[in-house]
């Protein structure tokens, strides 16, 4: 709310104007309490009264006026007035070179007061430019692409404003700030103003600058009028890593107030259910939902409308709503013995309770492999098997089954090489490492690792040391080596054969050649491996990308919108929008689920951190010499002025009251 050039941070305080009725009531109804006194010379008093009456009325009106003003000024103070910065020193420098850095990340699409932050920022920029002369040097930088700046004058920037759109990316202001400093230096401006327009969320910066730049007067415009933004959002929906039959819904509360809401799950067959939940301010939670085999292809998850509408709906297609059938072929003469590979494998998949985790296990010897078994299985695991049944394995791959092969002492390299030769792979020899060496993840963007964060996978492999392995060479470009030794020697090789998938682990899956089976990353690794191998073209392969990641990976151009969630339909925002997309890779259709960056859903601001007193973040902006727009420099002065008025008025009112006797 703004009045002339004064705006108010807490306009609700104007409700307090109702109190104005009190002095009015006092004035209308109040009669001074006077003691009765019989006095003989009443004639003289009445004669004197005529002269005095006018003064009495004037003073009564003054008294009422002062009382009204006291209430009014108190209300004004509580309304937290601030003066538009154009009255400040910076606003007067109308021809000073100016760089405008506009945050166009997705969080700018929040609209807590009906107007999107982005639109408000653009409107403020327009107001600002209106005050400057058209030829004054002005640059506009967008946080999403600070390198691209074309406008050079205020007039040019003004012309550009209508074309600006918010992106769905998670752009940070760091690069824009750096670029602004470079530009000022490059253009040899001795004194320039940098105006940053942002929603003021923590996610706006990766690292708030801590050094002052003397050539740059930075004015930080947090376009948020009220400190809080209510946002109950869906952060992430994905399959539970260790449980193929469940999905995990990540919920985030991006506002400070605790929220209670219903998460509505609607299945593509029309069935709908509500899941009530409660989430404290700035908190996150994960809720799991078990899926059965009959779960329809897509689930629409929906939260009630709030200040930020882009994360209120996600359409998700559960990947693992079907129990995986895994056929384990153990080369050990006594499979399921405690030392056997199949035991560790089975252990990772839930032992006797494997069905609850979404796996049907069948453990046989390699010799027991039959076409019927292949037909039954989704994934075949050849664990330290001496001879491959080459024909059957090839049939399985051709049928779209996944095949996992681990090495060991029993492996007959010659026989296996006949099988591998079709896929450009070749086993050379068994190598012994003294000391044992760790394996490292080389391709974090491999689909194998998609459900977990990079850090999680890195920690899963910590402490895993490989003592022996079979040296395997990879001949074809189709093969990927997501895990390798430090020198690049493959430890894990994957081939997407379209339709089937082949994965070779060049060491053992038990404790004979390495200690992986005792590591805590073994279970998620095996389960994720099985899920990866089971995925076929017919299986929807949704991948969770954030919008910004899609852009970074350069695949945005190949995306075809398969589905755009309701909030985004007809929404004119640039860049990939959250939703499910398809893309074609190697004659194969891949489904990509694009989502918003988690951090952009959280609207915690620097002010809120400072309010909580758990962080000296309030001074972070000051360290960098930033001045706040919202807390404009005149605000404290105005408040002191009002306070001074109140004191003076109270004094005068008290005096006038006293003159009229004790009330």
């Amino acid at each position, binding site marked *: 709310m703004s009045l002339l050039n004064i705006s108010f941070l807490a306009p609700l305080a104007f409700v307090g104007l109702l109190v104005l009725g009190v002095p009015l009531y006092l004035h209308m109804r109040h009669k*001074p*309490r*006077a*003691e*009765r*006194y*019989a*006095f*003989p*010379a*009443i*004639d*003289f*008093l*009445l*004669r*004197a*009264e005529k*002269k*005095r009456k006018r*003064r*009495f009325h004037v003073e009564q009106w003054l008294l009422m006026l002062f009382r009204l003003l006291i209430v009014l000024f108190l209300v004004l103070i509580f309304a937290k007035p601030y003066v538009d910065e154009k009255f400040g020193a910076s606003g007067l420098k109308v021809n000073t070179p100016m760089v405008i850095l506009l945050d166009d990340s997705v969080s700018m699409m929040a609209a807590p007061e009906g107007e999107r932050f982005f639109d408000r920022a653009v409107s403020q920029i327009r107001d600002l430019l209106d005050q400057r002369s058209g030829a004054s040097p002005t640059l506009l930088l967008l946080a999403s692409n600070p390198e691209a700046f074309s406008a050079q004058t205020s007039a040019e920037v003004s012309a550009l404003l209508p074309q600006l759109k918010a992106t769905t990316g998670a752009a940070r202001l760091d690069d824009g700030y750096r670029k602004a400093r470079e530009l000022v230096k490059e253009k040899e401006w001795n004194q320039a103003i940098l105006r940053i327009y942002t929603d003021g969320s923590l996610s706006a910066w990766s690292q708030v600058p801590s050094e002052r730049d003397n050539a740059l007067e930075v004015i930080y415009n947090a376009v948020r009028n009220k400190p809080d933004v209510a946002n109950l959002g869906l952060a992430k929906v994905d399959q539970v890593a260790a449980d193929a039959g469940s999905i995990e819904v990540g919920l985030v509360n991006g506002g400070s107030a605790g929220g209670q809401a219903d998460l509505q799950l609607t299945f593509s067959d029309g069935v709908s259910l509500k899941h009530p939940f409660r989430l404290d301010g700035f908190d996150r939670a994960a809720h799991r939902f078990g899926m059965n085999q009959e779960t329809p292809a897509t689930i629409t998850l929906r939260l009630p409308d709030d200040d930020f509408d882009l994360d209120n709906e996600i359409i998700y297609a559960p990947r693992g709503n079907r129990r995986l059938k895994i056929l384990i072929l153990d080369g050990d003469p006594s499979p399921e013995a405690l030392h056997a590979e199949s035991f560790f494998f089975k252990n990772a998949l839930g032992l006797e309770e494997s069905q609850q985790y979404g796996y049907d296990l069948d453990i046989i010897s390699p010799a027991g492999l039959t076409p019927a078994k292949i037909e039954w299985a989704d994934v075949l695991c050849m664990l330290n098997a001496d001879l491959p049944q080459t024909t059957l394995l090839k049939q399985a791959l051709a049928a779209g089954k996944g095949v996992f092969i681990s090495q060991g002492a029993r492996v007959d390299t010659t026989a296996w090489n006949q099988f591998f030769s079709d896929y450009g792979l070749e086993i050379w020899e068994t190598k012994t490492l003294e000391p044992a060496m760790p394996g490292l993840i080389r391709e974090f963007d491999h689909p194998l690792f998609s459900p977990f964060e990079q850090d999680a996978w890195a920690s899963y492999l910590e402490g895993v040391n490989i003592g022996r392995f079979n040296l395997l060479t990879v001949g074809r470009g189709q093969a990927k080596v997501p895990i390798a030794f430090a020198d690049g020697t493959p430890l894990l090789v994957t081939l997407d054969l379209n339709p089937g998938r082949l994965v070779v682990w060049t060491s053992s899956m038990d404790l004979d050649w390495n200690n992986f089976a005792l590591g805590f990353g073994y279970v998620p690794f095996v389960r994720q491996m099985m899920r990866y191998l089971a995925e076929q073209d017919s299986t929807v392969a949704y991948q969770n990308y954030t919008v910004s990641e899609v852009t970074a990976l350069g695949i945005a151009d190949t995306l075809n919108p398969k589905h755009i969630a309701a909030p985004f339909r007809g929404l004119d925002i640039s860049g990939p929008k959250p939703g499910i997309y398809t893309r074609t890779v190697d004659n194969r259709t891949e489904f990509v689920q694009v989502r918003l960056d988690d951090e952009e859903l959280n609207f915690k601001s620097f002010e809120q951190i400072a309010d909580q007193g758990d962080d000296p973040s309030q001074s972070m902006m000051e360290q960098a010499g930033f001045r706040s727009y919202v807390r404009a420099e005149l605000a404290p002065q105005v408040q002191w002025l009002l306070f001074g008025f109140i004191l003076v008025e109270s004094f005068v009112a008290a005096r006038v009251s006293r*003159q*009229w*006797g*004790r009330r």
Partner: protein
Amino acid sequence: MSTGQIANLSPEVLVGIKSLLVRARTVVEGALVGEHVSPFRGGSVEFAQHRSYSPGDELRYIDWRLFARTDHYHVKQFEVTTNLRAYLLLDASGSMDYPTGHGAVSKFQYAAMLAAALAYILIRQSDSVALSTHGEKGVKFLPPRSQIAYIQQICDVIDSVQPSGGQDIMGLLQHAQDRIVHRGMVALFSDFLVDVDALMAKIRILKSRGHDLIVFQVLHADELEFPFNRFYRFESMEDSRFLVADSKQIRAQYMEALQEHQERLSEAMRKIGVDYHIVRTDDAPSRVLANCLNGPMRAQKLRKMY
């Protein structure tokens, strides 16, 4: 108690004396001390009676023969009609009742004291004294008499009067104008908080008839100084008028109005040669009476008379 002490008795002390007669005598005793002589006198040719000498009596009336016989001073009194008729007009309007609190001397009490004292002096020297004051049914009038016992009757009437309501000095003046035929002395006791022009019109008529006028304007210190400092609802003592005001704020204007009134009154009195005395209720009544009896105006009258 010496006569000097009597002369200085405060009104509060005098009011404490229950009998108005005694009060009057005390006032007179305080007033006529030593060398003072009574300015009022009547002439007479026929002896009527003796009475004991009291200070202030003229020496020529002392019966020396009787002194030789009795070794006591007696003065001779004569029974022929007095040649001085004194009319006392005592205002008992509501405003004279101020202040109303216990222990305080009201203007009426004070005026009554003065009137009784004057009556005492006059009757004691065989002058006729008439009293005119406000009664329950209009004006109460006691015709002029000179018997010594008449003073008690005058005091009783004054005692019986209770100041109240909507009667004022104008009524008394009108009554005097109608009833007083013979030339004489007219003494007015009032606060004169009335319209000066109307008042002076009446007084002028009395004056034009050859009366010797003595005017006592009795005022309380509160009226003269207005020492209030609070918020009051000032109510009239004679009618329903009132004023709600802050005393401090209104004081200046009040004092201005009072002063204007007093100046007009005093100027008008001076112009027609009225013996005018402004009396405060905290003044010693004896002193007031003495000042009146021995004031320049009275001395002038004496000179004229003899």
